[in-house]
């Protein structure tokens, strides 16, 4: 009897285990058969939307609201919107693609979407999205999103990196001079050095005028700005050829000299972007390579009582040798469609187009504090009442977008190789010349594969 019960229990356990797994899959399948179901993955960008405070309270709420609005008019489509964390989110996408179960839509940074597309995980959109939407994309953005002659994604908006300057903190340190040539105005490297020296004189012990992170490849757009300022032009127009390396040697040499003089915080080779943001928010540095988002975090630090200074943040471009201004670093974020099934592709394209109507997209762009990729939204002049973004809008209009090879299929590897070269320089393991030579050899190896 005992033996019989034991066998029965064991069989039940095994059946329950297998059955529960099967049942989950089947229920999903049965539900999906009734409608076209599309999954939309995105990262934390929009936290609050003015006028929508009761609905949009945290990251992910805005996208859920848009999905719900879309489903009201498209009852045959089910949109599942899922917020992904920056930490581990990209790994999750990779695993989902490799496992053959990716979402139908991803909204993410161009440096990653182009990589997924180049590996064949995403669809070319030339024949999937409408002519109306294609015509609405600004030409400069459209060219950034072309991979192998095809439109690989729909650009949504882009950040632009400048130098955020905390005038409130400088005042509290006792700095009384001018902020270079004023908000948004170009200036020379020599002027910048003089400014840094003057700020350093009044900075309390343990505080620095500026910090830059090279502990990982994240934040590389800040280095590019300094390299461009030193005359480097690392990629040709097609974004595939390493060209002007002396400018890069000069860039590394100059950054290291700034660290050695104490103008830039020490430990550049090990610091990561979060460290720099922490220093900015705690008043350890007076400048950061950033945008409106960095200004907002500063405002929050002051509102939360972490910093007791007046909020007074403005933005200036990065320095250039001749003082006439260089390139603008633009980091676009956009949609890609990964669905293989025609019905899902159509639903995905339709949902993207729904979100990008000016009435929704204008809110999304301004909530993200970025610059729109659509002509219809740009025409609304979103930042006319925002002093910070007005200055930045002028900067974006004044300086051409620099190419840092975001659509290069090897972008990820190249930027990591560049971070390693920087770390070798800043930690004193290699001279700038040797580090750049090593970087060049690595890039050739990467491209040669």
């Amino acid at each position, binding site marked *: 009897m005992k033996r019989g019960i*034991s*066998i029965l229990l064991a069989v039940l*356990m095994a059946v329950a285990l297998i059955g529960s797994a099967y049942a989950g899959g089947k229920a999903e399948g049965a539900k999906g058969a009734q409608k076209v179901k599309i999954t939309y993955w995105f990262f934390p960008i929009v936290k609050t939307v003015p006028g929508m405070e009761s609905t949009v309270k945290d990251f992910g709420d805005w996208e859920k609201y848009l999905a719900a609005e879309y489903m009201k008019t498209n009852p045959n489509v089910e949109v599942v919107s899922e917020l992904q964390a920056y930490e581990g989110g990209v790994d999750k996408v990779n695993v989902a693609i*490799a496992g053959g179960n990716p979402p139908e839509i991803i909204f993410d940074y161009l440096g990653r979407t182009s990589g997924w597309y180049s*590996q064949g995980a995403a669809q070319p959109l030339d024949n999937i999205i409408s002519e109306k939407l294609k015509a609405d994309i600004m030409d400069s953005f459209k060219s950034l999103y072309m991979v192998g002659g095809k439109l690989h994604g729909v650009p949504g908006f882009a950040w632009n990196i400048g130098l955020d300057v905390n005038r409130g903190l400088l005042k509290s340190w006792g700095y009384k001079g001018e902020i270079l040539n004023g908000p948004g105005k170009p200036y020379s490297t020599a002027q910048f050095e003089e400014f840094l020296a003057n700020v350093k004189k009044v900075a309390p012990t343990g505080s620095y005028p500026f910090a830059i992170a090279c502990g*990982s490849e994240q934040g590389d757009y800040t280095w590019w700005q300094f390299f461009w300022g030193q005359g480097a032009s690392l990629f040709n127009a097609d974004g595939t050829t390493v060209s002007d390396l002396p400018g890069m040697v000069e860039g590394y040499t100059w950054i290291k000299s700034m660290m050695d003089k104490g103008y830039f915080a020490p430990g550049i080779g090990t610091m990561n972007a979060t460290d720099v943001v922490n220093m900015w928010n705690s008043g350890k540095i007076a400048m950061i390579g950033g945008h409106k988002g960095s200004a907002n975090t500063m405002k929050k630090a002051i509102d939360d009582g972490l910093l007791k200074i007046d909020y007074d943040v403005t933005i200036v471009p990065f320095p250039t040798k001749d003082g006439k201004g260089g390139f603008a670093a633009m980091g676009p974020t956009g949609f890609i469609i990964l669905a293989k099934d025609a019905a899902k592709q159509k639903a995905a394209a339709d949902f993207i187009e729904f979100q990008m109507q000016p009435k929704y997209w204008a809110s999304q762009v301004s909530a993200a504090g970025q610059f729109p990729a659509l002509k219809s939204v740009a025409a609304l002049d979103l930042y006319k009442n925002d002093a910070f973004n007005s200055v930045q809008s002028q900067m974006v209009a004044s300086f051409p977008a620099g190419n840092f090879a975001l659509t290069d299929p090897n972008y990820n590897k190249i930027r990591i190789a560049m971070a390693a070269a920087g*770390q070798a320089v*800043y*930690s004193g393991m290699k001279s700038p010349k040797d580090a750049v030579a090593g970087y060049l050899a690595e890039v050739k190896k990467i491209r040669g594969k």
Partner: protein
Amino acid sequence: MSAVAVLWSRMRKEKAAYLFILPSVLLFLLFVLYPLVRSFVLGFQEANLVSAKWVGLANYIEILQDPRFHTALINTMLFVVFLVPTVVFMSYFVALRLAPLTSRWQTYFRAAFYLPVVVSGVMISMIWLWIFNPVYGLLNTVVGFFGVKPVAWMGYRGTLYWLMVVVFTFNFGVPLIIYMAAINNIPEELYEAARIDGAGKRTVNWKITWPLLKPSTFFLFVTQTVAVFQTWVVIQLLTNGGPAHSTETIVFQIYMDAFWYNQYGRASAMGMILLVIIVFLTLAQKLYAGDDVSY
């Protein structure tokens, strides 16, 4: 009778027992054995996110010729050579000091040393990150009192050794607990007899305690070797493999190849190389420990 027939006959005889372990066996097959076999096959392919093609031994040849892999291999071996004996012997000596204490003090020290094992590796790494921070870190504040300029602890050639200190704190708790339990299980009569024969403290430790802990020591050497070989979180969070790839280990490179570069074939081949190294070292340890180790 063949081995399969013997197994089949035993399974028919003990149906209930085998059915009870069936769920575990299925999970093992699905989540351990299948990925292992799949990884072995992938090692011979050039595989990205969506496609794979057969390349034979090309991944293995490329890895073995890659200077970055050589650095990772040396770093991994340095970790094992320095850390495993240090952790095992230190935990042995600390356990010897703690064993004679009252049970209340033993509980206190057990909890204190075991805490880093229970707390998430990410949390502890974040604390170390703050300690080592060149601008607002605790270590620089302390050395600053002696007039030392800020040091980038995670940014020079010796960074690997600082990482070992961090990994040590993670790995110390388990061996200590095991040694304390094992020491407390040694019959008191053995010590009494030794003392009557005139053995001193040191002699008792080396002639009685240490030999009787041989099974625990072997177990700890094997498990610590495997654990140290798989060090990843600390490197990922504290140095990200830098400066200039100088602190990368094999597991870190596997992670980078798979999840950053999407080179699943190369990552799998590297995983197989690591597996061979670990199996080889474990067999060597078993050989060295001899046959008198039992569980």
